[in-house]
């Protein structure tokens, strides 16, 4: 360990130096206070110092005060050397920041003993600091450490013309899915593996390959790799002259992450979305640079998996907006600022309202009533869609139960509730639906869950299981946006679906006067026939004109919804609609559709 001896007495200095060298210290000697300050605040500074009380220029306590005032470097253990033993001097020395004091002339054994105490103290402080600044799982520096280093770099870039750095914000895609499906232990192992591969992608100091080692090995020897969140990492490329280098690192990371991780007997493939931000431009705060990289990462994510994107001012502003919206959403959930609107679904034969699709609106305190498009993507990305979706389902079921209690003579009302991809990925979806049904008392047959075609096709085998479990509760399932994805018809047979919803893009084109509607009409006709042959009801979405309504009626479509019939309305308006319903209708027998379904399979 390096130690400083600051003493203007050459005899004392020489004796101390020799004693310390014999104890294995690397000794630096100076003869005045200012040189001591320069040495202790300089590069590669000693971690321990013995400072004479009286020195030319600055005395020992003054040196202590200056060293303590600087918090950029590591802690230094300061021992004051004094010929005086007055209590007030000792107190003053400690108040100046000294850790210990020795009386002159020193006894070598006492000196060594005091230094052992100092070394233990430093070791303990270092260990606590290391824990506070490092991620216990990957051993990488954590957010606190990273922000400190980023701030230093931002300051340097501001002060030194030509100094540049680049920041990479890395988000591991589908990490939650791994955690949920294979458990947290596997998820943890995956993060450790990712950390290792990230270190292999950058300029870090010498380290045994495949071994993370102590994080300090990652510091000051090249690029800084830090873990700042569950599946979020950052890489700080210091003193980087060219943005292309940042891009090359991003590409190297994508390449490093490409091979499968072998964990828990499974081959796990992951990708990363990477945002790149540089010190060039106007960034004056570390938070701006980080936000820029974060925004760029979101942009990369929206472009698809395994992509990178370079930050610009637009994406930066967008990121600020996204962050604010996310915070507002959290508050909205607590304050119950959401409202369920209901869009009627009518029987095309007699225009009777048979169901309502529940659609969420947000009564934003400053921006007014917001449509789902303004906040659902952020809710989905942040995971807030899960509690929000549960709230919508609970409220819709409560409302349906109320309607059915009040309008029973007019027949049961069904509510259709959309299930988002995040909700669909939740392990406790079935239990959640069951709880809501119990809580609200709604007949399960009056709840229809809408899932999109694309959603079910992402992991069709899981979807079959999940939809079967849901239908066992007694709820019905409808396939939304049908015709827009790439459904496997064999899976369509295995899904317990009772309703197909024709996507509005087909409906919009079925009654064009320019003669271009033939293709869409054929598709709609095919979907209706397919649905009917499989024993399903068919709903046409997005009906906006009478002509579309007429064509759909002629093609035998069962149900329809759209602005021609009604926009989504508040609950009280939906109640008024139900009051005016013409005649009662009974719940269909649940087994009929499956029986027809099977019959058609045999027939075909």
């Amino acid at each position, binding site marked *: 360990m390096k130690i400083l001896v600051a003493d203007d007495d050459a005899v004392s200095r020489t*004796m101390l130096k020799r004693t310390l060298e014999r104890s294995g210290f690397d000794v630096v000697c100076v003869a005045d206070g200012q040189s001591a300050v320069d040495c202790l605040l300089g590069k590669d500074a000693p971690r321990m110092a013995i400072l004479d009380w009286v020195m030319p220029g600055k005395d020992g306590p003054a040196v202590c005060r200056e060293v303590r005032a600087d918090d950029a470097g590591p802690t230094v253990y300061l021992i004051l050397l004094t010929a005086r033993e007055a209590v007030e001097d000792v107190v003053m020395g400690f108040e100046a920041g000294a850790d210990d004091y020795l009386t*002159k002339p020193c006894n*070598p054994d006492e000196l060594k003993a005091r230094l052992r105490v100092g070394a233990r103290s430093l070791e303990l402080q270092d260990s606590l600091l290391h824990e506070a600044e490092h991620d216990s799982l990957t051993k990488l520096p954590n957010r606190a450490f990273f922000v400190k280093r980023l701030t230093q770099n931002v300051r340097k870039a501001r002060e030194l013309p030509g100094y540049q750095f680049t920041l990479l914000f890395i988000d591991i895609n589908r990490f939650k899915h791994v955690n949920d499906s294979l458990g947290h232990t596997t998820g943890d192992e995956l993060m450790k593996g990712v950390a290792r591969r990230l270190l292999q992608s950058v300029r870090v100091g010498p380290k045994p390959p495949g071994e993370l080692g102590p994080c300090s090995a990652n510091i000051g020897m090249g690029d800084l790799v830090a873990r700042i969140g569950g599946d979020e990492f950052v890489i700080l490329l210091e003193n980087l002259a060219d943005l292309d280098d940042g891009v090359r690192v991003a590409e190297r990371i994508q390449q490093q992450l490409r091979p499968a991780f072998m964990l828990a007997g499974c081959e796990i493939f992951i990708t990363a979305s990477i945002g790149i931000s540089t010190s060039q431009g106007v960034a004056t705060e570390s938070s701006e640079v980080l936000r820029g990289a974060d925004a760029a990462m979101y942009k990369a994510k929206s472009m698809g998996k395994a992509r990178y994107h370079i930050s610009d001012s637009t994406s930066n502003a967008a990121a600020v907006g996204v962050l604010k919206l996310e915070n507002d959403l959290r508050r909205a959930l607590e304050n119950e600022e959401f409202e369920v609107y209901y869009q009627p679904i009518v029987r095309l034969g007699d225009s009777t309202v048979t169901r309502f699709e529940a659609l969420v609106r947000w009564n934003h305190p400053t921006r007014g009533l917001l449509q789902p498009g303004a906040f659902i993507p952020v809710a989905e990305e942040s995971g807030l869609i899960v509690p929000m979706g549960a709230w919508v389902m609970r409220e819709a079921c409560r409302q349906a139960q109320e309607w059915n209690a009040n309008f029973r003579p007019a027949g049961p009302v069904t509510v259709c509730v959309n299930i988002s991809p995040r909700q669909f990925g939740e392990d406790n979806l079935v239990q959640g639906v069951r709880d809501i049904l119990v809580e609200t008392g709604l007949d399960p047959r009056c709840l229809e869950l809408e899932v999109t075609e694309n959603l079910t096709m992402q992991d069709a085998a899981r979807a079959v299981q999940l939809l079967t479990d849901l239908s066992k509760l007694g709820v019905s399932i409808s396939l939304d946006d049908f015709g827009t994805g790439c459904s496997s018809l064999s899976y369509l047979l295995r899904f317990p679906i009772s309703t197909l919803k024709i996507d509005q893009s087909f409906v919009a084109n079925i009654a064009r006067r320019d003669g271009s509607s033939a293709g869409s009409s054929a598709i709609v006709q095919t979907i209706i026939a397919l649905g009917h042959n499989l024993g399903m009801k068919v709903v046409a979405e997005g009906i906006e004109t009478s002509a579309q309504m007429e064509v759909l009626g002629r093609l035998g479509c069962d149900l329809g919804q759209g602005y021609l019939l009604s926009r989504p309305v508040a609950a009280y308006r939906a109640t008024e609609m139900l009051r005016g319903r013409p005649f009662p209708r009974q719940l269909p027998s649940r087994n009929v559709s499956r029986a027809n379904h099977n019959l058609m399979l045999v027939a075909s």
Partner: protein
Amino acid sequence: MQTAEFANHTGVDLKELFVRVEYDRELLRDVLEIFTEEFLKLHALLQRAVERGDAERIQNEAHTLKGMLASLSFGKASASAMRIERLARQADLAGIQEEMAHLEYEVPFAQANLKKVCEEIW
């Protein structure tokens, strides 16, 4: 001769000094050599300060000298330097002149004895 008696007679507490240098002969020679050079400088500075009647300067130089002499276990000489430091604090220039004579006797005496020990005994 007992150690204390020896220290009394020679002006240097050898036992204490040997412990301080951890019985390192080479170090002892080195520090003696350094002291010889440094004392000349410090003494000159002190004398100039006394001539100028600069009490603060006298106090500083005497303080440094006191520490150096104590490091070499030159007990009487160190005590003399301490008295000069104290007298300077009291601005007693006459007392300082008198004590300077003491110091100028004690230091060479202890120094010579230590040198002899280094050459003959060790």
